[in-house]
């Protein structure tokens, strides 16, 4: 089923603040098996010039995904979540995400297209602190696989 093209260009203002916690950074770093001390030890992080423990490169997937889910679950968009897979992802880093950051995410639907029966939607998340400092721009392309091709 084709996605509603009228969603292209829509922007979703931040819904709530996400406060980055030391324990969440540690939990994420452990889940990806990354042992670097600046993720778990504030002193080690400060020695590298950060104000507190710093987040691993893909940590903001947490807030990015929440923003994605908010958009793709809109029934008007017509997206079958059960057939959705992640096509690609990019992060552009503006400043380090550290514990204590209070993040806001503004999301934009950048593109919707259809190819060979699959639907593609590109979403951008502008992630910044409450004070307006840009942290990360995240882009995700999601693919909704053609139901006819199930079982390939």
């Amino acid at each position, binding site marked *: 089923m084709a996605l509603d093209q009228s969603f292209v260009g829509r922007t979703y203002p931040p819904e709530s603040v996400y406060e980055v916690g030391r324990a969440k950074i540690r939990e*994420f770093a452990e889940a990806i*098996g*990354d042992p670097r001390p600046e993720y778990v030890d504030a002193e080690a992080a400060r020695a590298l010039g950060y104000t507190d423990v710093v987040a691993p490169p893909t940590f903001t*997937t*947490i807030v990015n*995904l929440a923003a994605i889910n908010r958009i793709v679950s809109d029934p008007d968009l017509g997206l079958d979540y*059960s057939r959705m897979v992640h096509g*690609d*992802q990019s992060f552009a*880093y503006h400043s380090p995400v550290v514990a204590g950051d209070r993040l806001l995410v503004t999301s934009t639907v950048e593109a919707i297209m259809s190819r060979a029966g699959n639907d593609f939607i590109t979403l951008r998340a502008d992630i910044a602190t409450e004070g307006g400092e840009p942290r990360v721009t995240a882009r995700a392309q999601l693919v909704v696989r053609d139901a006819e091709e199930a079982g390939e």
Partner: protein
Amino acid sequence: MSELTVGDVLPPLSTHITRADLVRYAGAALDFNPIHWNEAFARGVGLPDVIAHGMLTMALAGRVLTAWGLGELVTYSARFTRPVVVPNDDTGALLELTGKIGAVNDDGTVRVNLDAKFDGRSVLGKAIAIVRPA
């Protein structure tokens, strides 16, 4: 860091992803899509079995960068071209992660070309990081 040259290879990494790792990552990343933990659901939507989160593979490939002591990361991007199928056993799926310098840019940054292989085949496409070496 100095004297980086195109073709330089970063220390590789290999790791096994088990179902337990997927559950743990799901909780840490707050990604509870059932295709990453529920076999019946995954098969029901046409997948061969439970598959790993693309973002977990991307994070693991990122460890090749962070282990290298990368300096400042400017961008990191990847396409998820092939699923990493994770069996319900103690061994899981073996992921082999590599990186090499793809370009040394005029602005002082370097491009690192990353790759993740599962079953001998790449599961990431155009996995690229732009790094400003310390």
